């Protein structure tokens, strides 16, 4: 079983659009949407949720009003301004650090487990899918990404699938670490903008840090060919394969509005380009350990 992750560094480069196209083209796969802070793969795959599992994040502070003597010691101790009134803790602001519990003289703070998100086991027209959603203001998205991947592996073994395609999160923080670690290949989708190039450099450094091989796709390459050349130069300099360039095309918007991936919606030039890129990705996947 192989794992392919698609990341971007910068958000909004077309990562999920391309991942959805790959999941349509790939055979015998499980889909794992690891962009748990803002998951949107389900908008295209329209999965039927079979089972939902609550995700317990970091513990949060709750005041036991029977014990609280309203001394006010917890309020200045909280570095997150979560305690605005003497015995009221804002659950959105609470980071679960436990300092209030330590300073409370009468042990009136309980650190309780809370549900920070939901993990879904689903079936879609593209195949089995594991996806999740972190609740508003919740932390620990790195842990939830790990959980999504664990369930995807179980699903893959259970259904005898040969590939897990992971839609990774943007950025370079803990959720990206969780999504990239231990995968066989990381596809970086970038765009020809200054921030696209800047974040491409950052995310490829992160990928290499975890000893995974990155490859690059430039999306909407023709909106700034000068910047695309700079991305090409960077890839050449760092010996990172640039697998393909996808032109800007309004058909992408039409496909998204129709709730379909590009190859499913449209049988034209863009689909041919994406198919060629997918074949290169798949070939690399079969070659790597």
């Amino acid at each position, binding site marked *: 079983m192989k794992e392919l992750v698609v990341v971007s560094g910068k958000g909004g480069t077309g990562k999920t659009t391309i991942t959805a196209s790959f999941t349509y083209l790939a055979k015998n796969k499980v889909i794992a949407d690891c962009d748990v802070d803002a998951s949107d793969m389900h908008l295209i795959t329209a999965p039927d949720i079979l089972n939902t599992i609550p995700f317990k994040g970091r513990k949060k502070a709750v005041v036991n009003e029977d014990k609280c003597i309203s001394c006010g010691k917890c309020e200045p101790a909280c570095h997150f301004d979560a305690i605005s009134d003497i015995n009221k803790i804002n659950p959105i602001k609470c980071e679960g650090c436990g300092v209030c519990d330590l300073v409370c003289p009468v042990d009136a703070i309980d650190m309780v487990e809370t549900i920070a998100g939901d993990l879904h086991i689903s079936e879609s027209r593209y195949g089995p899918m594991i996806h999740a959603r972190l609740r508003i203001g919740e932390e620990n998205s790195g842990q939830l990404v790990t959980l999504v991947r664990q369930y995807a592996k179980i699903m893959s073994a259970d259904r005898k699938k040969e590939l897990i395609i992971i839609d990774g999160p943007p950025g370079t923080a803990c959720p990206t*670490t969780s999504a990239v670690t*231990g995968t066989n290949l990381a596809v970086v989708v970038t765009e020809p903008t200054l921030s696209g190039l800047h974040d491409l450099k950052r995310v490829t450094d992160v990928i290499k840090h975890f000893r995974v091989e990155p490859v690059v796709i430039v999306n909407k390459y023709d909106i700034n060919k000068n910047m695309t050349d700079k991305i090409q130069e960077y890839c050449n300099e760092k010996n990172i394969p640039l697998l393909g360039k996808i032109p800007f095309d309004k058909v992408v918007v039409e496909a998204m509005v129709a709730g379909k991936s590009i190859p499913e919606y449209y049988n034209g030039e863009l689909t041919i380009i994406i198919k060629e890129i997918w074949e290169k990705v798949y070939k690399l996947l079969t070659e790597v350990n």
Partner: protein
Amino acid sequence: MGIAHELILRWSKVIDPEVNIDVITLKLIYDLDVDDKNMIVNFKFKPTVPTCPIGHQLALQVYYEVAKDDSIKEINMEITEYIYADKINILIKEIEEERRKKSEVKNHVQ
């Protein structure tokens, strides 16, 4: 089972709590070199990011997983790609020197 295998098993229980993945799966330990004859262990450790807020904690956990084996005579651990690498490297060297001294005294007594 060799020392290297034993260490990998132990390090597999050291979890980065932010991502809930162990340091072996994260590939944070590298250049592991074990001299089984002289019982010397050399390796490098890097946190997930240079600004890791629990880099110290993880580095010490990794070190103590080796240090709890009394039969290991010498541990040479180097922390890399971390903004406080210099500080934690000095700290671990001091702890290791102390461990070695205690071990020598124990051997003399026995």
